[in-house]
């Protein structure tokens, strides 16, 4: 990255040395540091997933014992959820792109932003301390009283999650204030890029829900350390109450994971169809609707837990309602392409794949929300498949789309488009091969969190494991060409995709240290391609931009 973008001064090269990164207040650099951290977390979580899959290749012990397996899937989930997927899009792409899309010079509280990053790192390290101290095998849901009766490792994991929660809260708080207070002149709410709308909605959820996981893990910590008897039935507590606490956060948290993905997809759909995103207002407001409704459905994880029927009914009903704003989005994305000009670059390829995989995940979510059906499907591989389809097939696929979209802007380099397409297809095939069979075996009755299983499920498990290998190859390929692009990638133009948001039209590639030399004045919506007068361009060509 030494002399990117033909020696012009930009945020990557204006200052050098370790300190200029470690102490930077620049949202773009912080975004990049998150990118590195989050990728490592994904790598670690992914390696554990591979081990889990290999273990399940045959019934009984394949490569590890029951204890090791239980810790592997717990750690896989904790890493993936708390250290990877929650910060993935907001902290990486949100940090990088959101202030520029707003026409701001930085986020509202840059110091807080840097602090969030370090808090995240500290939290992650504490959580991993559990590995050193003792076994943690409760599953990522840590249901009591099992979780409080296992080793002391649980204290570290809860402390780590507590700390990482602050990072998430502070990031969300920062973005809400930034969106409210730092929009460029002319950038009305109706003109905001949909990415911003969805990050905004996400931030609301982060601010409102994360404190509750804080108090939950704190109480769990005290339950273990002092036996305070709120959750532990042996001491007069109620284990189902813990589940309420946990899911009050963790259901909204799934919208922390998916709403940013929605935002990325909206931006990709608009840009690569070169068309107004259809139903702009509906798409924007449905994010906020999902954010709020998302708080009212947590009990759908507890239909067989022994909670009262009246709450099951309420939760089930509201669960369906979430499908409606989501459906509004899906259908509007599809109709954005209608009479558009669709270009299948690799980011768009991911967006198209997203529609497929996320919809499967969403529809199976609706099936799980049906009271009578969930009784059969709860805690089987059907649920495992559902949430990988929404998290991996939703968030991760969208994150890959976003990464490929913003990569040229972040690094100033173009990656190999051919390899990118191959990798996208590999990921798509591998993903479906891994997780589709899990729907079937789940419906057949294969319970989750099983180290050993009955021989009749072996065929499905094998398919799934082979799929995970294809997936692994796909990710390795992505890692390869992205890293390679840093060293020998072609120089990226100002606006290789012909997008209309400010990071493409009003700043250099890579962006200047202060984003803009003059505060941009916005005169049109984020997807008003027909009002744009600048030339659209192919790869690498330099465009004449109106305001430069």
């Amino acid at each position, binding site marked *: 990255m030494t002399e990117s973008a033909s020696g012009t001064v930009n945020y990557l090269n204006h200052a050098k040395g370790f300190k200029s990164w470690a102490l930077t207040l620049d949202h773009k650099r912080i975004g990049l540091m998150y990118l590195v951290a989050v990728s490592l977390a994904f790598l670690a979580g992914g390696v554990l997933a591979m081990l889990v899959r290999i273990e399940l290749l045959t019934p009984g012990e394949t490569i590890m014992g029951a*204890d090791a397996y*239980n810790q592997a899937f717990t750690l896989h989930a904790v890493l993936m959820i708390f250290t990877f997927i929650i910060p993935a899009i907001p902290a990486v792409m949100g940090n990088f792109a959101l202030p520029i899309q707003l026409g701001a010079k930085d986020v509202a509280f840059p110091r807080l932003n840097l602090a969030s990053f370090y808090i995240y790192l500290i939290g992650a390290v504490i959580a991993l301390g559990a590995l050193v101290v003792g076994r943690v*095998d409760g*599953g990522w849901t840590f*249901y009591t*009283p*099992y979780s409080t*009766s*296992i080793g002391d490792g649980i204290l570290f994991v809860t402390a780590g999650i507590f700390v990482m929660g602050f990072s998430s809260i502070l990031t969300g708080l920062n973005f809400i204030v930034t969106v409210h207070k730092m929009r460029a002149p002319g950038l009305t709410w109706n003109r905001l890029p949909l990415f911003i709308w969805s990050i905004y909605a996400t931030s609301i959820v982060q601010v409102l829900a994360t404190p509750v996981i804080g108090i939950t893990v704190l109480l769990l910590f005290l339950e273990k350390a002092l036996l305070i008897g709120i959750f532990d*039935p*042996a001491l007069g507590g109620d*284990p*189902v109450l813990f589940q309420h606490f946990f899911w009050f956060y963790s259901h909204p948290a799934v919208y922390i994971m998916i709403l940013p993905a929605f935002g990325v997809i909206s931006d990709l759909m608009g840009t690569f169809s*070169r*068309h107004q995103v259809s*139903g702009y207002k509906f798409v924007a407001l449905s994010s906020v609707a999902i954010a709020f409704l998302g708080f009212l459905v947590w009990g759908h994880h507890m239909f*067989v837990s*022994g909670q009262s029927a009246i709450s*099951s*009914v309420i939760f*089930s009903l509201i669960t*369906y309602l979430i*499908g*409606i704003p989501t*459906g*509004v989005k899906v259908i509007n994305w*599809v*109709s954005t*392409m*209608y*009479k*558009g*000009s*669709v270009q299948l670059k690799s980011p768009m390829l991911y967006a*198209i794949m997203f*529609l*497929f995989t996320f919809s499967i995940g969403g*529809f199976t979510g*609706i*099936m799980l929300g*049906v*009271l*009578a*059906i969930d*009784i*059969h499907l*709860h*805690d*089987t591989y059907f649920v495992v498949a559902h949430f990988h389809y929404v998290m991996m097939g939703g968030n991760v696929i969208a994150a890959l789309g976003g990464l490929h979209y913003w990569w040229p802007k972040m690094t100033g380099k173009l990656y190999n488009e051919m390899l990118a397409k191959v990798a996208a297809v590999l990921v798509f095939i591998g993903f479906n091969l891994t997780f589709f069979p899990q729907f*079937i075996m789940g419906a057949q*009755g294969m*319970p*989750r*969190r*099983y*180290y050993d299983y009955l021989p009749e499920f072996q065929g499905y498990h094998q398919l799934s494991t082979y799929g995970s290998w294809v997936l692994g190859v796909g990710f390795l390929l992505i890692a390869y060409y992205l890293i390679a692009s840093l060293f020998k990638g072609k120089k990226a133009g100002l606006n290789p995709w012909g997008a209309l948001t400010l990071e493409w039209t009003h700043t250099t590639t890579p962006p200047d240290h202060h984003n803009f030399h003059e505060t941009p004045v916005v005169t049109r919506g984020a997807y008003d*391609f027909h009002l*744009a007068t600048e030339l659209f*361009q*192919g790869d690498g060509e330099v465009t004449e931009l109106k305001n430069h």
Partner: protein
Amino acid sequence: MGDNGSVWLPDAMSTLAGEVDALFWFVFWTSTIIFAMVIVAKLYFVFRYKRTDDKYVPSPVHESQALEAAWIVLPTILTLIVFTWGFDLFVKMSTPPPDSYEITVRGKQWAWEFEYAEGALSFSEMYVPVGRPVKLIMSSTDVLHSFFIPEFRIKHDVLPNRYTSVWFEATQAGRYQIYCTEYCGTEHSGMLAEVVVVSEEDFASWILEQSQDLPPAELGEQLFAQCAACHAIDGSVKIGPPLNGLYGTQRALADGSTVTADEDYLKESILNPAAKIAAGYQPIMPAGYSGMSAKQIDGLVAYIKSLE
């Protein structure tokens, strides 16, 4: 698959299973149809409106409020249908008929124990009569478990502080798998059992047989089902030490001393496992077996003695 199962669902073997399946298929097919429409439209648009001219900027399409509203109203109606249906069935599945035959089920790390009204006990096999509603009254002696029989489409968490129940009416004799589906520790995946559905007469005679006195070693063999998750009897090491050939040997303990594995030692190991810890093992054997009757303990000891 079996007689009335499919690629997706296992055989439906209880009176309500068929109704659950009907709902499942309704949701499955409506979802599939909507999904297919989304995907077909998507693919069609991708190819139909593929970019050919790099300079071409399409003009915006006028949005139809009516269309937007339709996307909101239609799914709402569909989901409300599914909700009502699912709720209705849920209530049915949660309300056992008053004349149900009752079995008490206890989950413990990591075995199931079934106690019948007549006082009979069984482990890892639950006998039930065909064609008669059966209600299971369940509790746990340690952590959360969950009781799941796929063929009957029933599942409910088993809690340590509360009785929960499920009910079913089996429609055909046969053996079906019981799983634990709430994560409960190392051997969670080994917490299996089977439900054995037999005719009303066979059930009656089985119960009768159970209440008769068994020779101690045979009683012990039955009871041992709940130990089998941790103790092998073929010399292999599971979570606990193998118990065959144990009797009469010298045991090294974790504190460095040794002890002869006589009857007293066996008894103590069961009643108060923490007292003497076998070297090389974690002190994780549950203390919950002290509740067994003297006869049962004697049976277990006799059985362990008999193991070669």
